[in-house]
C-alpha cells in the first residue's frame, strides 16, 4: 500500500479518552428531536468524521461539543469531568465566516485579539499559521479578493492560531470544487499529522470522510442518532496514491453501504411513524 508509519493508526486506538458523550439528546423548542441517546467516545488525536444524511444531527452534535448549545439529556464528559476551556476549541464553519472588512492577517488575529493579545505580540503566531496554510504573501488581502479555497484556508488558520486541542469542522469544504477540496484535504491532514490535535469533522461525503479519518461515525436521521462506526485502518500519511488505491475504494464501498443502511433505517422509521 503506502509508505510506512504504520505505527500511527493503531496508536490511536489506545489513546486516552478526550471526550465522552453519554446518552446525549437534544430536543428543540419546536419539538424536533435533533439528537437522541448518543454515545460517542472521542480519543486524543482522533480524526473522527460524523457522516450522515442531512437532518441526522451531525451539526447539532458539533455545536454541543463546542458548547454553543446545551444538551437536553445526557452529559458531555471532558476527560473525566468538567468542560474543556473554550480556548482549547477551534471551530471551522461551513462558510469561511470571515470579517469582510478585515485583512487576512487581522482575521487570523481575531481569536487572539479577543483574548487581549496585541497585534505585535500575536504577529509571529499569525505569520507562522498563515505559512502553514500556504497563504504567505496574502496578509493584506481582504476576503473578497480571495478564492473560495483561500478563504477556507484563512478560516482554518484562524481556528488553529490559538493552538486548540480540538478542531471542530462543520462541512467545511462542502461548497468547494473537487480539485480545491482534495488540496485542502491533503493540507489539513498534513497539519493534523504535525500537530496531533483532535478533529471532529462533519461531512456528508463518504469519500472525504474515509480519506481523512481514522474513525467514521455514521449517523441516521429522525431522530438523529449514531448508527454505526467504522475504523479506517489505513496508515497515514495518506496522499494521492491512497486516493486512487483499491484499499480506499473498498473502504469507501464499505462506508457507503453503512450509510445506505442508515438512510434506509430512517425511511423505515419514517413509515412506521406515520
Amino acid at each position, binding site marked *: 500500500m503506502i509508505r510506512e508509519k504504520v505505527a500511527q493508526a493503531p496508536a490511536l486506538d489506545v489513546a486516552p479518552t478526550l471526550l465522552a458523550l453519554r446518552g446525549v439528546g437534544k430536543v428543540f423548542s419546536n419539538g424536533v428531536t435533533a439528537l437522541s441517546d448518543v454515545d460517542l467516545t472521542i480519543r486524543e488525536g482522533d480524526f473522527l468524521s460524523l457522516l450522515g444524511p442531512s437532518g441526522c444531527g451531525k451539526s447539532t452534535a458539533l455545536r454541543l461539543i*463546542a458548547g454553543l448549545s446545551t444538551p437536553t439529556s445526557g452529559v458531555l464528559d471532558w476527560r473525566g469531568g468538567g468542560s474543556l476551556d473554550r480556548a482549547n476549541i477551534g471551530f471551522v*464553519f*461551513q462558510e469561511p*465566516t470571515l*470579517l469582510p*472588512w478585515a485583512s487576512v492577517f487581522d482575521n487570523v488575529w481575531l*481569536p487572539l485579539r*479577543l*483574548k487581549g493579545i496585541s497585534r505585535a505580540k500575536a504577529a509571529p503566531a499569525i505569520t507562522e499559521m498563515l505559512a502553514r496554510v500556504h497563504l504567505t504573501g496574502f496578509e493584506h488581502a*481582504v476576503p473578497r479578493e480571495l478564492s473560495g479555497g483561500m478563504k477556507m484556508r484563512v478560516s482554518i488558520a484562524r481556528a488553529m492560531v490559538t493552538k486548540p486541542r480540538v478542531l471542530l469542522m462543520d462541512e467545511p469544504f462542502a461548497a468547494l470544487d473537487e480539485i480545491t477540496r482534495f488540496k485542502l484535504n491533503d493540507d489539513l491532514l498534513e497539519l493534523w499529522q504535525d500537530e496531533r490535535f483532535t478533529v471532529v469533522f462533519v461531512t456528508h461525503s463518504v469519500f472525504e470522510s474515509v480519506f481523512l479519518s481514522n474513525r467514521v461515525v455514521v449517523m441516521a436521521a429522525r431522530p438523529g442518532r449514531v448508527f454505526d462506526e467504522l475504523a479506517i485502518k489505513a496508515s497515514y500519511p495518506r496522499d494521492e496514491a491512497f486516493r486512487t488505491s483499491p484499499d480506499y475504494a473498498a473502504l469507501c464501498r464499505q462506508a457507503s453501504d453503512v450509510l445506505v443502511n442508515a438512510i434506509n433505517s430512517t425511511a423505515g422509521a419514517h413509515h412506521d411513524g406515520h
Partner: protein
Amino acid sequence: MTAIDELKLDPEEARRVRQERFERIGRWVLPLAIMILAIWLWDRICVWNAIPQYILPRPGVVLSTLYNDAGLLFSALLVTLRITFLSLVLAVIGGVGLAVLFAQSKWVEMSFFPFAIVLQVTPIVAIFPLINIYVDNQTTKLLLCAWIVAFFPILSNTTLGLNSVDRNLRDLFKLNGATRWQQLRYLRLPAAMPYFLGGLKIAGGLSLIGAVVAEFVAGTTGQSSGLASRIIEAGYRLNAPRLFAALFLISLTGILIFLVLSLISHLILRRWHESALKQER
C-alpha cells in the same frame, strides 16, 4: 479601447464596446446638455414674453445677483450650514447612540422604537410651536428641529445594521469568549457601517432641509439669520433674483453635502463592501 482592439472583435463584441463607450460619455453629456437647454429655454421664455424681473428673472440676472449679493447671501449660508452640520453631528451621535442602546436588548428596542417613529412621522412644522414655547435659545430651537428631522434614518439604518450580523460570526465570537463590548466593537459596529453610511447620506440632505424649515417657522431675522430668512425677506420685497440666488445656493449646498457623504462612504467601503465594488468595475 483602441481601434486596433476593435478590429479583432466579432461584430457582437464590437457593438458592445461601442455601446459601452456611448454610455460612458452619455452619462455626463446628456444631463449636462438637457440642463443647458433648460436654462437657455428659461432665458428665452423671459425674453419672448417680456416677463418682468420681479416675476421671473433671467438666469444671467440670477447669476449677477449671486455675485453682487455674495456678502449677504454667503454669510446667511454660513449660518444655515452651521445649523446643518451641528444637527448632522448630533443626529449621528444620537442615532448611533440610540441604535447601540437598542442593540443591547430586543426589549429596549421594542419599548423605545415607537417613540422614534412618532418623532419621525409628525411634521416638524407642526411640532415647532411647542419647541418655541419650551426652548428659549434660538440656536437650540433650530438645532432641535433639524435634529428631529435628521436622526431617524441614522437610527433606523444603524439598528438594522447592528442586528444584521452573520449568525456564524456571532457564534465565533461566543466561542472565543468575546465580551459584549468586544462583540460590539469588533463585530457589530463594523458590520453596521454600510447601513449607517446609507443612513448618513439621507440624513445629510434632511439636516439641511430641517435647518431651512426650522429657520422658516422660527422666522429668524437680523444679522445672524440664515438663508431661509433671506428668502422670506426677498419674497416680501419681490426681489425675485435674490430669491432665486438663495434657492440656487441651497440646492447647491444639498448636492455638495450628498457628494461629500457619498465620497466618505465610498472611501470607507471600497475595499470590502458589495455596494462599492460595482464602481470599481
